[in-house]
């Protein structure tokens, strides 16, 4: 703490320790970029996420969360307050690329003027919105073109949607939103010359479901089920991060058996997710048989999951203070007996798929990402570990599950190929590590009994918490702020809190690992061949459903109109003749 006050943030106005190793520091908005430079460049920290909370007449709170775990056991939550009349804050994105997408989001949803952004375009809303009704053009032309000041990884004259298709022809290819090589809806604009990619840009936002607002309306207990449904593949990771974050709002003590059950399910989730990814990657290089046979193997894992939790995808066992279902000793024994068969099947199949000569020809040297690029761009998860950067949330900032190295032994898998082959190998080896963890958890569960749930306590209004977890795709970040303060401070005498409204969170913010990895895809694509574009996109193991989940806080009404079926058919027929 002293180190923090003297060396790290001497400009801090208020220091408040939160639970676990998080510390909240309030600063003035003008200092934010200087502090970012000091943290990232000199002290070697990582920016986890930057977000904003709308406090209506009290202004905006812009929150930056820095992960210092490589230097000291600390996660720093930096808060700056800006007024509603003139919300202006200097940009952290011009210091480090890790913040660029977060700042685009803050600017478009809260209306905060982030000065000096390298890329001021919309992140989730369409580039052309809002349109000037008279001219039909976007009312803010800077949204079309990236700013010429600051650092920009794409070329200066890049106009992703300003190109007339008649003149572009085969030089500008939109991969998506509907494309057989892209599993979910996104658009990657690539400019090609022949088969070589010269420039690339990515646009997301097609899956926006306003999950933040859904959780904020439903409260902590019901919000667990919403957070599980952010993503189907990594549903357990979201559940664990949510309960870690909510339990950090009060003094939680999760029983040991519940921790083992939580680790068991998150690692089973990781096994099935990585096997799924190997299938999807082989499908993207055109080998449907690899897809079918690896998913056939995945069914064994799904059977174990279904026997333990009752459902294959959304486990529904996450509760504040523990888990809701116990794994009885016979069930643990039966599950443990299937593990050797599973390991043998994996050992036979996965090396055969990964060492295939044609697969290797497609995968070696594709999508390179050096260590420096990964560090500056803020890669997380297997993408970072394949570039020789050893970060893993389970070691650095463990969530509320059993990852204690003295009780469960496991290794972090790091590879130095720095390309697509490295990512494949990292995920294949992680599958085996996770099966080992599952075995150890089941060994504990079949021999002991115990409590599985602890009663939750009251949450103090205004408390804040950060929850981190290692999803199969990387670091998953949850931020929550408990409600009940703003209305209260305005109406109650000094020092008293009105607990009305404190059963609901004031702010819930989710940042998924695909959010980070998607920001680096354009850098990986430049210089590769067109045939490699889907496999590079797939190598970050995208989950667009995770990425697009922000709420719209602005209450500007936009004109809305519904298209009837006839209009839709006529619009698509305009370009065609029957």
């Amino acid at each position, binding site marked *: 703490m002293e180190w923090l006050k003297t060396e790290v943030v001497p400009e801090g106005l208020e220091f408040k320790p939160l639970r676990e190793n998080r510390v909240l520091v309030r600063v003035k908005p003008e200092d934010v970029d200087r502090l970012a430079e000091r943290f990232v460049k000199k002290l070697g920290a990582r920016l986890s996420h930057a977000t904003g909370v709308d406090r209506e007449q009290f202004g905006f709170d812009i929150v930056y969360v820095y992960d210092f775990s490589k230097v000291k056991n600390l996660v720093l939550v930096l808060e700056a307050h800006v007024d509603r009349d003139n919300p202006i804050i200097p940009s952290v994105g011009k210091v480090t690329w890790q913040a660029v997408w977060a700042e685009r989001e803050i600017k478009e949803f809260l209306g905060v003027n982030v000065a000096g952004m390298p890329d001021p375009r919309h992140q989730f809303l369409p580039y052309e919105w809002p349109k000037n009704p008279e001219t039909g053009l976007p009312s803010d032309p800077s949204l079309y073109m990236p700013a010429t000041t600051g650092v920009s990884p794409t070329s200066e004259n890049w106009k992703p949607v300003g190109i007339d298709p008649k003149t572009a022809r085969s030089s500008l290819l939109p991969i998506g939103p509907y494309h057989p090589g892209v599993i979910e809806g996104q658009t990657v604009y690539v400019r090609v010359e022949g088969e070589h990619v010269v420039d690339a840009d990515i646009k997301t936002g097609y899956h926006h479901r306003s999950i933040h607002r859904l959780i904020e309306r439903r409260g902590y207990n019901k919000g667990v089920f919403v957070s599980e449904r952010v993503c189907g593949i990594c549903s357990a990771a979201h559940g664990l991060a949510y309960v870690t974050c909510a339990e950090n709002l009060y003094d939680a003590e999760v029983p040991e058996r519940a921790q083992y059950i939580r680790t068991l399910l998150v690692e089973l989730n990781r096994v099935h997710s990585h096997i799924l990814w190997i299938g999807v990657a082989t499908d993207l290089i055109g080998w449907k048989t690899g897809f079918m046979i690896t998913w056939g193997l995945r069914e064994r894992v799904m059977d174990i999951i279904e026997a333990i939790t*009752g459902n294959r995808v959304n486990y529904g066992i996450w509760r504040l203070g523990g888990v809701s279902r116990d794994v009885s000793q016979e069930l643990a024994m039966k599950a443990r007996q299937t593990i050797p068969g599973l390991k043998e099947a994996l050992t036979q199949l996965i090396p055969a798929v990964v060492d295939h000569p044609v697969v290797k020809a497609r995968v070696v040297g594709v999508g390179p990402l050096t260590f420096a690029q990964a560090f500056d761009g803020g890669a997380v998860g297997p993408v970072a570990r394949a570039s020789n950067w050893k970060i893993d949330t389970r070691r650095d900032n463990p969530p509320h599950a059993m990852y204690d190295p003295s009780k469960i032994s496991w290794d972090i898998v790091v590879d130095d190929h720095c390309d697509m082959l490295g990512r494949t190998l990292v995920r294949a080896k992680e599958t085996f590590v996770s099966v080992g963890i599952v075995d150890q958890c089941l060994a504990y569960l079949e021999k002991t009994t115990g409590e599985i749930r602890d009663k939750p306590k009251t949450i103090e209004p205004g408390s804040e918490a950060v929850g981190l977890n290692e999803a199969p795709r990387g670091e998953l970040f949850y931020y929550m702020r408990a409600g009940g303060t703003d209305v209260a401070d305005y109406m109650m005498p000094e020092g008293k809190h009105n607990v009305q409204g404190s059963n609901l969170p004031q702010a819930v913010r989710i940042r998924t690992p695909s959010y980070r990895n998607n920001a680096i895809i354009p850098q990986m694509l430049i210089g590769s061949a067109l045939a490699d574009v889907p496999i590079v996109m797939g190598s970050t193991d995208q989950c667009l459903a995770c990425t697009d989940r922000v709420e719209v806080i602005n209450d500007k009404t936009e004109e809305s109109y519904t298209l009837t079926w006839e209009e839709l058919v006529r619009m698509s027929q305009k370009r065609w003749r029957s």
Partner: protein
Amino acid sequence: MPARIKILQEVLAHYSSPMTLNYPSSVDPNKKYSSIPEGLRGVPERDEEKCIGCEACARVCSGMATKIFDNESEAKRLVQIFLFRCTFCQHCVDECPTEALKMSKKFEVATGSRDDPANYVDTTLDLLRCGNCGHTFYPRKYVDKSYELLMQKINPLVKDVVAADFKKVQDYCPSCRRAFAYKYDTHTKKHVWLEGP
């Protein structure tokens, strides 16, 4: 080449026993479902005898599927789960005080139309009518169960007074209870319950 041979072996291993099933064909029942484990979370089922109509399941339902409908004229309470919204999360099963709910193993819930009665899981209970104003308020079973739980945990010194008072109020709705509060022996301004009758 050895990799290709290994893949060929893998591929031919399941040649005559494919992993896909004949669903929805029911000619060979062994080939319709792969396995239905014991703890499968299917459609929730409510035991009509045990349900007391306490509304706990409606309050914790995370998908807003369970709703309570009170019918004044017929004095019936309908506890209804709308299966289109149920997420099978088991929250209601965990919170039910009488353990009336259970997740069955039924998962084929598609029907042909929205109004099909198979889309709803209904339980009807009788409501009591207030002796004073005539409005319906709580189900009989709820009142009985509250009495039972109260008598289990109460301080034995005041048990008789509270039991006598309860018998007086149990047929009146909460608004009327408040209106006639002075009739109770446990009223804070009366000291009967401290010193005895």
